[in-house]
């Protein structure tokens, strides 16, 4: 039985996170999952188990900056913002995504 796969393709999670943070400024992890979910019109769902390690890795790599802040519900949350290095990385990821998409589309169209 064919199965609908809406897990985020490996490697594109970083692209999505960077894109959303570039557009929306400061977000915590939970808001990021919701944002991806919403922005993809409920097509994409982020596994929590993938998101947080990715956020940590991206922070270590210097693409994101993380700091503790308070949400409107007065909870302590870790808020992420994109850094200049992150923006550069976003460009790279967008390009490579565009190449991948073009390639895949061509293959689907002409074979």
């Amino acid at each position, binding site marked *: 039985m064919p199965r609908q796969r809406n897990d985020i393709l490996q490697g594109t999670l970083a692209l999505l996170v960077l894109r959303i943070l570039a557009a929306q400024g400061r977000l*915590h*992890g*939970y808001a990021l999952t919701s944002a991806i979910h919403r922005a993809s019109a409920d097509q994409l769902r982020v596994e*929590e*188990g993938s998101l*947080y*390690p990715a956020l*940590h*890795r991206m922070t*270590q790599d210097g693409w994101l900056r993380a700091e503790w802040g308070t949400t409107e*519900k007065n*909870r*302590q*949350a*870790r808020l992420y913002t994109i850094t200049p290095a992150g923006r550069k990385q976003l460009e790279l990821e967008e390009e490579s995504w565009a190449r991948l998409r073009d390639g895949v589309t061509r293959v689907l169209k002409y074979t």
Partner: protein
Amino acid sequence: MSWFSRLRNQFRSDDVSRDIDRELEFHIAERTDELIAAGMRPADARREARRRFGHLGDHAERTRHRDLFGWLDTLASDLRYAVRSLRNAPAFAVAAILSIALGIGANTAIFSIIDAVMLKSLPVSHPQELVKIVRDDNDVFTNPLWEAIRDRQDMFDGVFAFASRRFNLAAGGEARRVDGSYVSGEYFSTLGIRAEAGRLLSRTDDYRGCPGIVVLSDAFWRSEYAASPAVIGRTLSISAHPFTIVGVADPRFFGMSVGDHPQIFAPLCSEAVVQGAGSELDHRSSWYLQIVGRPKENVTPEQIRTRFAALAPAIIEATLPPNWPAEATADYKRSVFAVAPAAKGFSALRSTYKKALYVLMVIVGLVLAVACANVGNLLLARAATRRREMAVRLALGAARARLTRQLVTESLFLSAVGASLGGVFAFWGSRLLVGLLSHGGEVVSLDLTLDGRVLAFTIGVATLTGLAFGLVPAWSARRVDPQAAMKAHGRGVTDGPSRFRIAKALVVVQIALSLVLLTGAGLLIGSWRKLATLNPGFRREGVLLVAADALDTRVPDDQRLALFRQMLDRVRAIPGVQSASLSRLTPIGQMSWNEVLQTDGFTPKSEEDALSWMNAVSDRYFSTMGIPMRAGRDFDDRDGAASAKVAIVSEAMARKFFGAAPAIGRRFRIQDGRTWSDPIEVVGVVGDTKYNSLRDTAPSIVFVPDHQREATANARRLEIVTNGSIASVATSVTAALVAVNPKVSLSLTTIERQIDDSTRLTRAIAMLSGLFGALALVLAAIGLYGVMSYTVARRRNEIGVRIALGAERGRVIRMVLTEVAAIVIVGAVVGAALSATATRLVTSFLYEIRPNDPATLAISTVVLVAVGLGAALSPARRASRVDPVAALRED
């Protein structure tokens, strides 16, 4: 992640994990809120939120994994695991750690001596700036030359001269010698040494006619005066002359030569206080000073050389030795002065022991290699028994890299423990070694304190060792196939051959290296045995030697020979003295004397060819020393100072200078400056003896009556043969000699001691190489035993089947021994090939044995094969005793 940020994380790892926990808590709280908003009951909502997250701890683990914290955490668990698994195999752990400890300990011990002798700088300020002055290839100078250089030079901030001496602190009777130095005024200031107490010497202390003053070393001050400050101003006696103590030097300073520790520093000028009229301060041919300077800033060695070239004519003109042959004078006038680095000091020790130390370093390196192979093999055997464990872990999803890391951690841990223990061995070993190299009155003292270099060496060796033997099991674990390994207990299935191949290859390496070490040890021990038992042509034991020095007596020069004669007569009168004689020197005693001879019928090829060794002796010297008279007569009362000049010659001298014809009655002359002595008639021929060293072939020696050659002498040797033990007579000899003149200084030794001292380096190397050879052999035997025991254990089933099918026990033993023999033979062949080149390294320590001596190689091989088969005997017997029923019922 860069190592830097990993490191940074180390310091906030607690923060990191707290952050992660808080962040995940937040996420779950948000999700719960959302689910409640969607209509779920709060408890269900919380459970669902958590479920979506999976196991909370897992997440924290995965996110944290990239931090050093995690890395260290793994390391700690690896170490814990290593300790636990080693505790479960104590025999293995002890064998492995001891192997490593011995290997690394031996290496560290030898290296720390090399470090002290070759590499350590002097403990003075900015030692790398110091240079020594050389004239052509020579670094000794006369005092006039030193003064000429000192007064003319302008290239140095400070420059000083010094000479090592053994000062006699006793005022008469048996000498009490202490290492000391005559030093010029700027010695301490140039070296930058501070005073521990009192003051040091300065330029104003060093002038002609100065009184005797001394500075003590800190060690001497402590041992002799209990570090009492009251010692300043007191006097001590050097050769019976009073010297005032003015200060104590810095504790860290041990002098300018590595290996000897001057305890007393006296100004150069005070040499005249001791020597009186015999002072060498104005002698233009007494070469005894070394010169060291600290060049001015930015003055290069090349500039100094150029400047010296300009100064040289004036320096040479002022110091030209009188009465030199024209050729030597011309040579002297062409002298070129230059400088060479002096940061590591001057050391005769360095040149004497350099070769020996490097040979020892190679030897201990080989021992370490054998030890490594041994530990590698032990680990391999262990890896085999742990194969199932590894397979289970692989099957449960452990990464191969993780397993490799675990194994390497274990190896490094082993080698770290071994190295620590080895450090302790090295501490004792290096001191023991220095003791071996010291002899008689001359104590070699070295600064063996641990420095960074030795520490780095040990850590480096330990790490390399750990990696070397740790990679072996890791390499073999690499190919563990979980399925096969889990099944491996099935009947009849034996291990793949590869593991045996590695293990056997390691044993072959061990055997080959052991053979190299054994052969080398065999050669060195053989040489030493030859030296220790050869007949030097004179009695090699049972002779008491007394060196009597009349320098400090007030006896006039022309009466000194009579004084010595009187001493001889007194000694001969002592009951228990069988025979006694006087001589200028005793053979193998570090003193020598030679002259150019002229005879009819012998045309020398060069001046050197006309040289003969000399000695001046009293009557009965030959009978006392046990040298046989071959022809003619001994010296006696006929040979007075005024009588016709006579000589007794060795057979080698007779052969060389007089040919086949009888030498008795023949005459020869001795070169005397530019002329020749009166003819000297040969009245006796004696058997050949060694002269300078036991290694010499017996040379040409001419013996002349003591009083015919010289009118005076400062020192003489007495040879005394006693009826009973030497010790019982020694006291009465000393008493008798002191009674003759209490100011004569005496040193007592025996001919055995004197000969032993001359072979001590050979003996030390022979002993050490034997020790290390035996060690390597034991390690190789353990390796062989281990691998055969293991083979037998793994083949238990197969052997059981063979026995069940009727194989005789003897046949089983033969089967195992054949396998061992194959290993040993391959090892021996490789070892023999290696030995052929490796033993050349020790050539200069050998005596009458060639490095590729077939007998030594054969004996070493036989020993090796015997030990190898011996080691395999017990596993072979065990194999033959396998109970087929029990073996087949297993599993």
